[in-house]
C-alpha cells in the first residue's frame, strides 16, 4: 500500500520565495505571480491509519507546518503544479531521513518498504503550458530527477520510483577469440549483451586486450565479464595514470617518476634533517609533519565528467570523495579543511551544445553547471562539518564542454597511538574484509573508465553518483572518534573509482591476496549483476581489514553509531583475488597480473605548431581596463560562495576567505588546527591555464610560483611549504598534447626543486574533451586548456603573525617587491606578447626576505600580484581596506615601460605590501638585495590615484568596490 504525506508551511516560506525569485529572473516575460511549496513523502509500506497519522505528525513542525495524509493540499489559485522527485535508484537523502524518522516513530523497520521524497511547486499567474514545462526543465535535471507538470484541476498521480531491474544477473563468459575489430569494439563500447547492446566502455586498448586474451589462454579458459570489467578498472588511466607512468620519448621511467616524484626525492635529500615529508605519493593523501605529535595531510581531486552531467551530484561527490582520501590516509586522518576550485565557462554564455546529432541530449547551460557545482560543495562541505577556508572560480570558454571541479581536503592525524604508527597500515592474511558505510547500487558504474574518455552521447548516465554527507559523517565518527584509536583494524582505504574492485584489489596487495563472497555485500535494491556489484561506485563506503579477534568490538561501535558494517570476505596470502558467488568462483586473477600485467606503452610527443594569439586590437584606458577586469568572473568577488561555505566550523579559522572591511576574496587561508598549539597551516592555490595558449612550461612554472607567492603573502615561508599538482589535460592521445604535458612536467621539476617545495600528492585527469554537436547540428570538439592547479600547504610557528590583504591605516607606505617586466601575453588585460617567465633565483630571494620581514612584524598587509597585474592587486588591497592610495608607478624595477605593461603585466615573483612608517627603515633594510619600490602611501581620500609613465589614473573607491562586486551581484 502506498501512502502520501504532504507537509507545507503555514508561515512565510523562504524556499518558495527563493524558487519564485529565480524563476522570475529566468522568465522575465512570463506572467508568473506566486509560488507555494509542499514537501511530499511517498511511503511505499503498509501503515495503519493510526500509524500514518503519528508518522505525519512526526514529519511536521508543530509551530510552522501543517500536514495532510490524503490528497496533496492545493493553494486557492494556481495555474500549474510541478512535482519534482528523484529518478529510481538516485540517492534520495530526504527520503532516507524520513524513513529513519518513521522507523524510529513506529519502533519497527519498514523492511522491504521504502520512503521517497518529492516536492510540489504551485505556480500562480496566467502561464502557458509551454512556460510551465520550461520552468519544470529549469528546476530539475532529467538525468537524475523526474518532473511532472499538472494544470490546475487535474489529478496528481502517485509516483513510486521503485527500482525495478530486469537485467540478467548471471555471470557471462566473454570470448576474446575474435578479430581485432571486435576486440577493439569490446574495449571502446564494452561487452556485448545477448540482445546485442553494449555495456559501456572498458577503455581498454587493443594491445591491452591482447595481453588479457593471452593471460586467459594460459589459464585455458575464457574470462568472465566480472574479470574483464575488474581488469579494465585496475588498468584504467584514471587508476593507473598510464600517461604519467609510461615511457614518453626519452623519459623511460615516465614523466611522473622523473619530474614529480623525482623532484620530491631530490628536495628531501637536500633538506636532510629539515625534511618535513612523512608519507608522500604512496597513500590516499600526502602527509607532512605538523609538530612532534601530529601530521597534516592534503589531497586534491577532480570530478569533471560527472559534474558536466549532474553538476550538483558531481561536485558533492567530489568533496565527500576527497574527504574519504583523508579518512583513508594511514589509519584515518580527521578532515580539517576543504578547498575547492571551479574552472567553468562564462555563466552568461548562452551557446547551446548537444551530446548527440539529433539534439535530444543537450548539455546543461553554463549557468546551471556553475550553480550546481557551487551547491554541491555547499551540501558536501557544510553537512560534513568541515570548514572551507579557500577556493576560486576561473572562467574560460574552453571549459564549456566539461567543467573542471576540484575538491581538496586537509587532514590531521596523530603520529602515534599507544606506540602504533597511525600513518602506516597493512592488511594481514586472515583479516576480515569489511565494507563500511553505504550500500551498493548502480551508482557510478564505469566511473573510472568513463573519466578516461571524453564526454559524448555514449557517456553513461549511471556514471553519476550523489553523495550522502551524513552517512559519511557517521562513518567518519566511527573511525576518528572511536575505532582508530582502539586499534580495531589493520588497514583501510576508500571505495572510490572502481568501487570494491579498486579497494579490495589494492588492499589485497598489502596482505598478498583476497577472497570475497559477493552475495554478502548489502545492496540498495535487488537485481544487480555480479560485475555491477563489484564495480559500483556507490558513495560513502570504505573497505577495512579487521582482525578476526577485533571484529566483535568493531561491529559494536558501528551498531551504536547506526553505521552498517559487513564482512564480505577475507584477506589471504594466496597471491590471487578470488570472488565467489554463493560458493561458485566467478573471478580468479593473480595479484601480479591485476596490478602489473598492464602492457607498458611507449608514448611519443611532437612539438605543436605555435598558435599565434591575436594582438589586442584597441588599447584601453587603464582605468577602464581595471574596471572591466574587476567586473569579470575571473577577478570579481565570489563572496556569495565564500559566505555560503562554512569556514568557521571546528573553530580553527584564523584568516577568512573574505578579508578586510571591503570583504575581498583572498588566495590563501590560514587555520589553527590544534587547540593548544599556536602553530598554523597556510593553504593557497595557483593556476594560470591561459598561458597554455602560448607555452605550457611557462604555465606550469607560473602556477607553482603563484601558489608559493600566495602562501608567502599569508605568512608562510619557503622552507616549510609543500605543494600538490593536479593536471587536467585534454586529447592526451595526441603527440602534441603530450609534448605540452612533458613541458609542463619539466617545469614542475625545475621550479619545485629550485624553491625546495616538494610535491606530496597529485592527480591527473587527461581527457577533458567534449565531442558533440552545435545548435546547427555540426560536429564540434571543445578541449579544456591544459590546466595545472597547484595547491600549497605550509606550517607556520605562530598564527598571530599572519597577514591579510587589506590596507589598514592611513599613512602606511605602499611597496611593490619583485620586477615588473613587459609580459602581457595571454594576460587578463589581453595580448600576444610573451608570457611571464619565472626567475626562480630572484623570486626565492624576494620570498625569503618577505617571510622574515613578516615574522619580524614589519608588514601590515600583503597580497600576491597575479592575474590582472599590479592594477588589480592595488584595487584588491584598496577595496579590501576601504582606503585610498596615492601612488607613482613611473619607476618600477623591471623592464616594463608602457602604461599597460606597468599596470597589467602578470610578471611573477611580485607582491604588493603596506608598511607602517615607523617600520620603513627596518623594512627596507630587510629587503636588501631584493628589487623593491616604495610606490606611495595609503590615504584618507577615497580613491586610487596612480601616476603612470605616461597617463594618470584616478578611480574612486566606490566605483572600484561596485565593479568588484558586480559580476555575481544577483547570485
Amino acid at each position, binding site marked *: 500500500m502506498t501512502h502520501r504525506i504532504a507537509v507545507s508551511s503555514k508561515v512565510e516560506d523562504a524556499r518558495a520565495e527563493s524558487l519564485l525569485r529565480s524563476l522570475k529572473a529566468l522568465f522575465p516575460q512570463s506572467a508568473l505571480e506566486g509560488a507555494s511549496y509542499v*514537501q511530499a513523502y511517498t511511503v511505499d509500506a503498509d501503515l495503519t491509519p493510526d500509524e500514518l497519522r503519528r508518522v505525519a505528525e512526526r514529519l511536521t513542525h508543530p509551530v510552522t507546518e501543517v500536514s495532510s495524509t490524503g490528497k496533496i493540499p492545493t493553494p486557492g489559485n494556481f495555474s500549474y503544479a510541478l512535482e519534482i522527485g528523484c529518478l529510481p535508484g538516485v540517492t534520495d537523502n530526504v527520503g532516507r531521513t524520513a524513513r529513519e524518522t518513521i522507523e524510529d516513530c513506529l519502533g519497527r523497520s519498514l523492511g522491504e518498504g521504502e520512503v521517497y521524497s518529492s516536492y510540489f511547486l504551485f505556480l500562480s499567474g496566467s502561464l502557458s503550458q509551454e512556460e510551465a514545462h520550461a520552468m519544470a526543465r529549469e528546476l530539475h535535471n532529467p538525468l537524475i530527477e523526474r518532473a511532472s507538470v499538472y494544470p490546475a484541476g487535474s489529478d496528481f498521480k502517485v509516483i513510486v520510483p521503485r527500482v525495478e531491474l530486469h537485467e540478467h544477473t548471471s555471470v557471462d563468459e566473454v570470448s576474446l577469440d575474435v578479430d581485432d575489430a571486435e576486440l577493439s569494439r569490446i574495449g571502446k563500447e564494452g561487452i556485448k549483451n545477448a540482445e546485442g547492446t553494449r555495456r559501456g566502455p572498458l577503455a581498454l586498448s587493443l594491445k591491452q586486450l591482447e595481453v588479457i586474451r593471452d593471460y586467459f589462454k594460459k589459464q585455458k579458459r575464457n574470462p568472465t565479464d566480472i574479470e574483464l570489467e575488474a581488469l579494465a578498472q585496475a588498468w584504467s588511466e584514471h587508476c593507473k595514470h598510464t600517461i604519467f607512468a609510461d615511457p614518453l620519448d626519452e623519459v623511460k621511467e615516465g614523466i611522473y617518476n622523473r619530474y614529480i616524484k623525482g623532484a620530491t626525492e631530490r628536495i628531501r635529500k637536500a633538506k636532510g634533517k629539515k625534511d618535513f615529508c612523512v608519507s608522500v605519493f604512496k597513500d590516499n593523501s600526502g602527509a607532512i609533519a605538523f609538530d612532534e605529535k601530529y601530521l597534516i595531510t592534503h589531497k586534491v581531486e577532480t570530478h569533471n565528467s560527472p559534474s558536466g552531467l549532474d553538476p550538483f551530484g558531481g561536485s558533492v561527490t567530489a568533496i565527500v570523495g576527497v574527504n574519504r582520501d583523508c579518512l583513508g590516509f594511514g589509519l584515518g586522518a580527521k578532515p580539517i579543511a576543504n578547498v575547492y576550485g571551479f574552472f567553468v565557462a562564462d555563466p552568461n554564455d548562452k551557446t547551446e551544445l548537444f551530446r548527440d546529432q539529433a539534439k535530444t541530449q543537450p548539455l546543461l547551460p553554463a549557468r546551471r553547471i556553475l550553480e550546481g557545482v557551487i551547491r554541491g560543495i555547499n551540501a558536501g562541505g557544510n553537512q560534513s562539518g568541515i570548514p572551507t577556508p579557500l577556493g576560486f572560480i576561473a572562467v574560460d570558454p574552453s571549459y564549456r564542454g566539461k567543467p573542471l571541479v576540484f575538491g581538496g581536503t586537509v587532514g590531521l592525524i596523530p603520529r602515534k597511538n599507544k606506540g602504533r604508527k597511525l600513518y602506516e597500515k597493512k592488511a594481514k592474511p586472515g583479516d576480515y574484509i569489511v565494507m563500511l558505510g553505504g550500500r551498493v547500487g548502480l551508482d557510478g558504474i564505469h566511473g573510472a573508465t568513463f573519466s578516461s574518455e571524453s564526454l559524448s552521447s555514449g557517456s553513461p548516465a549511471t556514471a553519476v553518483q550523489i553523495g550522502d554527507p551524513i552517512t559519511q559523517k557517521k562513518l567518519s565518527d566511527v573511525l576518528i572518534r572511536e575505532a582508530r584509536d582502539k586499534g580495531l583494524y589493520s588497514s583501510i582505504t576508500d571505495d572510490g573509482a572502481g568501487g570494491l574492485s579498486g579497494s579490495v584489489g589494492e588492499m589485497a596487495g598489502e596482505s598478498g591476496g583476497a577472497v570475497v563472497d559477493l552475495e554478502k555485500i548489502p545492496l540498495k535494491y535487488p537485481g544487480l549483476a555480479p560485475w555491477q556489484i563489484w564495480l559500483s561506485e556507490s558513495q560513502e563506503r570504505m573497505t577495512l581489514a579487521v582482525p578476526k579477534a577485533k571484529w566483535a568490538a568493531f561491529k559494536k561501535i558501528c551498531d551504536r553509531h547506526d553505521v552498517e558494517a559487513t564482512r564480505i570476505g577475507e584477506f589471504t596470502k594466496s597471491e590471487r583475488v578470488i570472488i565467489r558467488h554463493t560458493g561458485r568462483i566467478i573471478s580468479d586473477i593473480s595479484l601480479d597480473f591485476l596490478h602489473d600485467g598492464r602492457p607498458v606503452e611507449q608514448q611519443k610527443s611532437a612539438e605543436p605548431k605555435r598558435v599565434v594569439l591575436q594582438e589586442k586590437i584597441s588599447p584601453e584606458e587603464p582605468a577602464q581596463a581595471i574596471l572591466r577586469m574587476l567586473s569579470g568572473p575571473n577577478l570579481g568577488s565570489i563572496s556569495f560562495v565564500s559566505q555560503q561555505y562554512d569556514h568557521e566550523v571546528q573553530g580553527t579559522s584564523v584568516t577568512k576567505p573574505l578579508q578586510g572591511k571591503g570583504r575581498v576574496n583572498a588566495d590563501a587561508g590560514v587555520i589553527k588546527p590544534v587547540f593548544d598549539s599556536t602553530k598554523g597551516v597556510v593553504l593557497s592555490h595557483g593556476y594560470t591555464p591561459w598561458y597554455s595558449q602560448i607555452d605550457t612550461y611557462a604555465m606550469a612554472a607560473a602556477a607553482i610560483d603563484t601558489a608559493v607567492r600566495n602562501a608567502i603573502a599569508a605568512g608562510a615561508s619557503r622552507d616549510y611549504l609543500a605543494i600538490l599538482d593536479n593536471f587536467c589535460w585534454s586529447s592526451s592521445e595526441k603527440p602534441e598534447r603530450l609534448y605540452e604535458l612533458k613541458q609542463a612536467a619539466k617545469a614542475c621539476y625545475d621550479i619545485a626543486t629550485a624553491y625546495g617545495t616538494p610535491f606530496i600528492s597529485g592527480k591527473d585527469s587527461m581527457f577533458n574533451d567534449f565531442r558533440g554537436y552545435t545548435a546547427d547540428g555540426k560536429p564540434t570538439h571543445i578541449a579544456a586548456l591544459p590546466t595545472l592547479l597547484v595547491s600549497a600547504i605550509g606550517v607556520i610557528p605562530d598564527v598571530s603573525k599572519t597577514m591579510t590583504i587589506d590596507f589598514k591605516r592611513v599613512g602606511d607606505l605602499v611597496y611593490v617587491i619583485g620586477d615588473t617586466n613587459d609580459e602581457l601575453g595571454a594576460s587578463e588585460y589581453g595580448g600576444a606578447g610573451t608570457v611571464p617567465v619565472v626567475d626562480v633565483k630572484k623570486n626565492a630571494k624576494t620570498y625569503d626576505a618577505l617571510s622574515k620581514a613578516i615574522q619580524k612584524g614589519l608588514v601590515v598587509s600583503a597580497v600576491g600580484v597575479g592575474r590582472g597585474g599590479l592594477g588589480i592587486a592595488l584595487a584588491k588591497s584598496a577595496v579590501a581596506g576601504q582606503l585610498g592610495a596615492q601612488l607613482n608607478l613611473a619607476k618600477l624595477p623591471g623592464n616594463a615601460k608602457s602604461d599597460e605593461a606597468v599596470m597589467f603585466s602578470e610578471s611573477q615573483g611580485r607582491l604588493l605590501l603596506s608598511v607602517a612608517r615607523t617600520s620603513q627603515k627596518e623594512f627596507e633594510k630587510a629587503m636588501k638585495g631584493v628589487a623593491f619600490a616604495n610606490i606611495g602611501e595609503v590615504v584618507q581620500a577615497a580613491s586610487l590615484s596612480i601616476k603612470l609613465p605616461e597617463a594618470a589614473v584616478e578611480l574612486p573607491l566606490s566605483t572600484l568596490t561596485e565593479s568588484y562586486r558586480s559580476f555575481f551581484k544577483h547570485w
Partner: protein
Amino acid sequence: MKKPHVIIFSGYGLNTEDETKSAFESVGATADIVHINDLIAKPSLLQKAQILVMPGGFSYGDDTGSGKAYGNRLKQHLGAAIEEFLKRDTLMIGICNGFQILTNAGLVDGALLTNDSGRFSCRWVDLEVTGESPWLKDIKTLSVPIAHGEGKYYAPPSQLALLSKASQIALKYVEGETAKHFSMAANPNGSLENIAGVTSHNGRVLGLMPHPERAVRFTQLPHWTNLREEYVRGGKELPTEGPGLQIFKNAVNYFI
C-alpha cells in the same frame, strides 16, 4: 564546589562537539562527548552531569527540516530523562543545530525557518543581551559567528509577546562592531524581532543560533589583523581571548 561536568551530545551529523568541548575545558569544566544512542541505552549517564550541550552540526543533513529528526529522537527516547535532569539546578544549551533540535523537542519555544536569503550563511554578527540567563550574566553585547541555512527565528505573535514579557528573549542581533566594520546588515537571516536566542522560562536552558565556541580566541575575530595594528602601534600586547568565552565561563561559575 567542584568544577561542573559537561555532556555534549553527538551522532547523526552533529559536528561541533570538539570545539565546544575545548571551550568548556579551557575554562575549567570537564567534558565528555557522548553519542545519543549511548545516552538512550543508559539515560542514567545524565545524572553525573551539571551541563548538557546540544552542539551545532547538520543532524540528518537538515533533511525533512533542520533539527526535526534529531529533536524527535531526543524527545521520544530521552524526554523524561532530560526532564529529570532539568529538575535539578542544571544548565543546558543548544547551539545552532542544537537550538533547532531544542525547539523541535519542545525544550525552548519557537521555530527556526529558512533564512530570508534562501541560502546558508556564514559570517559574524553582533548580539545584544536582552534576557536573563545564567549563561549570559554580566554580558551586554558580544560578537560571534553564525553558520546556518535555517536560522530565521519565528514564533506566533502571541507567543513572542509572552516570551518578551517573561524576559525569555535572550539575544538579539544588533548593528555592533563587526556589522559596522564590514558594512553588513545586523540581522543576518530575517529573524522576527532580530531574535538570535531564547531561553526556557527559568533561563537555565539557552538556545541560540550563533556559535560562541568559535569566538573564544582573539585570532578568530574576522578583523583581528586590523585590530592588531591598534595594539602594536599602541605598544600593547595582543589579547588572547575572544568574546564568546564569557558564556562558557558563566556556565562554569554558576556551579562554583
